[in-house]
């Protein structure tokens, strides 16, 4: 394995071309990302969600409790189950 001077020259060229290309591509990633964010912000901003005050449902159960129960039912039933009513069982 003897080093070849022309190979070393080619390797130096690759160093220059390779690093410039990687910087160029990532610079374009940065620039295109910034432009994309501006365009999306301008033309398709996310609808502002109105926060409702937590209130109790007709059954008297707090919304966060209903959400927790619904999430558990969805997980356990693999998305097939649905919560229609919640009743407290007296012991």
């Amino acid at each position, binding site marked *: 394995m003897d080093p070849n001077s022309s190979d070393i020259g080619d390797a130096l060229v690759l160093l220059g071309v390779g690093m410039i290309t990687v910087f160029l*591509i990532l610079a374009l990633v940065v620039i295109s990302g910034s432009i994309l964010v501006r365009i999306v912000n301008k033309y*398709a901003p996310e609808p502002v969600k109105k926060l409702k005050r937590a209130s109790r449902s007709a059954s008297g159960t707090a919304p966060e409790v209903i959400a927790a129960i619904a999430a558990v039912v969805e997980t356990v039933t693999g998305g097939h189950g649905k919560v229609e009513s919640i009743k407290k069982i007296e012991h």
Partner: protein
Amino acid sequence: MEVLNKLYEMTAFGAIGDDPMTLVMLALALFLLYLGIGKRFEPLLLVPIAFGVLLANFPGGNMAVTPSTDIIEHMTIIEIAKEYGIMNMLYYMLIKTGLLPPLIFMGVGAMTDFGPMLRNLKLAFFGAAAQIGIFTVLISAVALGFSLKEAAALGIIGGADGPTAIYTAIKLAPHLLGPIAIAAYSYMALVPVIIPLVVKFTVTEKELKINMKEQDKLYPSKIKIKDINRTKIIFPIVLCAIVSILVPSSVPLVGMLLFGNLIKEIGSDTNRLMVAASDTIMNAATIFLGLTVGATMTAATFLDKTTLLIILGGFIAFAISIFGGIMAVKVHNLFSKKKINPLIGATGLSAVPMASRVANDIALKYDSKNHLLQYAMSSNISGVIGSAVAAGVLISFLS
């Protein structure tokens, strides 16, 4: 007596006695299995690779990959399976064609979140600086007598990306695939050791205490993302177009990465595709990649000086890449009011997300409130793109 002779010939004892170096390879396989199982060094890939080495080096099993020849190149897959066994069939069908690394990249894309990078776009530059190890080791390897193609395949270990290293080796130096894969994955597993080692000698305590969130408060970003979900859906499409036009040879890797990411970001409509890419396909590809790469490592192909040089060169490439990222941050800090923690530069090599986690842990040691994981992920993810682009440049120039 004749029966005993036949029984002896049926077993592998005779063949092992004829070639004692086989025992060295079997010991190496057991050592790699120990690293994967006992030490948990990248077990998902190191265990299949190690077992592939084991299978390939039991004589008579016909599970070792036969180096490519003109005759094999012109055989059909069925002929290869009949003549050389199923491991060769898998190798020539899945590895030699370069199929598996892009499939793994698709899975990686389906598990990658570009959100941290979009929120800290400027940090993506450090993913470029951390590719310097690839090219400096390429030059050193040529000086040591490696051919340009072999040197490029060796240098790409510095990108710290296993599939990229394997893909480049397949395209440029398939005869070095085994040692390159072993070096790449071993050093990726050693990221928690190598990054702190390089940081220890190059970064001061004051620099390590630079708190990224405080810097953000002092110098807030001019652009706030209002709809991150839409942005994350459009981003892979835009990025794919840019990379495809400028470095088409990196498209098999980057394109599949971005496709995987797109089906993840679309959400429930493509959820089944995302699950397939990140789970079923990724796992199957990992098994076959590991076993076949391991099966390339026989005593005849692995036990020589070149392997040692690759293992050593891979480590140097890795360390220089981390050093390059750190130095780029230091240069940035000289000219900018908003300081960046040099650990962000250290994560510019791939090895997602382990490099980011290691950087985060180091930062927390010096300041318990300095959680920089999200910032590190930006340069870490850009490092994946950077190393794939570097591989594309090398392949298009040298193949």
